[in-house]
């Protein structure tokens, strides 16, 4: 009887320690998760900002100004343009 009790006590202690460790691990993992979520939000913010920046740099008016002003580009003479129908596109 006493042997069985001792055995059960040992099991109980082991279980209790296991519970404590797993709880600790859970908390640690959870805080990692939180940190990663914050990071993902920050990256989202960054993405939004970059998107905004990209569209500001890519404003049509600005592109046109740079192309015709700085780079000296101009749209080709329509006589030198050939329109090629896309394969698979409905017939014009």
């Amino acid at each position, binding site marked *: 009887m006493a042997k069985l009790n001792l055995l059960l006590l040992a099991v109980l202690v082991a279980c209790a320690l296991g519970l404590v460790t797993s709880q600790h691990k859970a908390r640690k993992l959870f805080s990692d998760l939180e940190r990663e979520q914050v990071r993902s939000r920050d990256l989202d913010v960054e993405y*939004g900002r970059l*998107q905004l920046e990209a*569209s500001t740099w*890519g404003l049509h008016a600005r592109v046109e100004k740079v192309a015709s002003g700085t780079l000296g580009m101009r749209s080709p003479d329509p006589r030198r343009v050939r*329109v090629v*129908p896309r394969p698979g596109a409905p017939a014009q």
Partner: protein
Amino acid sequence: MTAAAAQGLVRLPVWRARVVLVAFGAAFLVLAARSLYLQALRTEFLQEKGEARYSRVLEVPATRGRILDRNGEALAVSTPVKSVWAIAGDVEADAAQRRRLAQLLALEPRELERRLADPGRDFVYLKRQIPPETAGQVQALRLRGVYQHPEYRRYYPGGEVTAHLVGFTGVDDAGQEGIELAFQATLGGKPGSRRVIKDRLGGVVEDVESIRAAQDGRDLVLSVDGKIQSLAYGALKSAVEQHRARAGAIVALDVRSGEVLALSNVPSYNPNSRARLTGAQLRNRVITDTFEPGSTLKPFTIAAALESGRVTPATLVPTAPGQLTIAGYTIHDAHPQGALSVAQVLQKSSNVGAAKLALALAPKTMWDLFKRVGFGAPPQLGFPGEAQGRLRAWRSWRPVEQATMAYGNGLSLSLIQLARAYTVFARDGELVPLSLVKTGAAASGEKVLSTETARAVRAMLELAVQPGGTGPRARIMGWRVAGKTGTARKLVDGSYAPGKYIASFVGFAPASDPRLVVAVMIDEPSAGQYYGGSVAAPVFAQVTQGALRLLGVAHDAPLEPVELPGEGEQAREST
């Protein structure tokens, strides 16, 4: 003597043991009652109190969906910002800190003092919607009584180019104008909340439950093409400036899908900084304003006449001597002509010819056709404040009204209604439903005109932009175009104001297989020229040329430079 007495023990009275027993029993009873009270009766309250020590409900923010053009370019994007607020009585900061705070928030130091000194309010916003970097610097000052909370701010990279179409949101992130308002339900996110356990330091240690999941708003892809939009706005703006006009509007539709490819107004505004906005800047002249269309309406009168079977494009209509008097009201032509064929009535834009054609029709026939092409009914875009225009019931038409309606006076409509009605000629008699959202597929329309009539009017409209017509300046190199000019006297307080005109042009291209309808309206050009053919048609040409190239539409005309007529050689109209 008993044995106990013999051992020297004193026999205690029995009542003493009883007293102790009763006392212990009572104490246990009290404990049991107390525990019953706490565990069973007040348990909920106590658990709540306990949870309140460590459990918190956090809001999970949701972002508003983006608005994109048909090629995926951003037209409206939300980015997180911070708002700084304070509890005025709690703020502890010395003079140097206050100066630094005012500097970071871009406030006058005096203004900051005024806000912090406001005794009536505890909660005071110091500055709303500041960038996260600045917010970080404010945080670094570690001022007591100064707090921040996250918000979203909407940015519009397109600025004034897409202002009227996209609209804007208020400071609370809800749509106030344009698409932002029309699609609020789709775009708006629903913030969620979750219950967590926090430790002594305020860090979240465990997620208990999610009360409501946050729902981010969905992205919305518009039918608008950013490049065509930009081109249209640029062309319209320079025309309005060149002709010193009060305002202008332009809309471009895809004939096959009914999608709106461009929609623009001048004067415009910058939706990113909306201080000092005037009503004129906010007005959306394409959708929510109406005007008397003038001669751009004549094709519909002629279509009604052709549909009735009374005339063919070659039938001669006598228009001499260039005026027609009905019930004391005289209709004039700008240039009196002799007998004109029906096709020439449209080409030369003869008011007398159009009036005579209209008077040969029953009012109901004409009204039916106007109604079928969408006049007098909102275009059902889902846009806030769509105008339906004014088309009076045919029973109340007097002959003179019927005659003036033939050339677009006495009824009003919005520019987008007019552009949509022209899809009837571009699509062999089908009226296409419009869409502001990208569909990417051909739409099926409602047949409102016979194919023959639609094709006949299309041929006449092509004639109207040839030399000898009213709109030769609408022609472009490489593609055949068709269209009609309009020069309407402007109604001011119910009567036609002298010297005030609305110049317009509506047309489509390529004429052999139309892909694009473009409508242009210029309000009160006042730099000398005011005819639709000289003011609005060049804008049409510029936008159509660029748009057809961007859409990759095959040429249907020889690539020879278009010869523009001199100012005097172009036919003119008076409506």
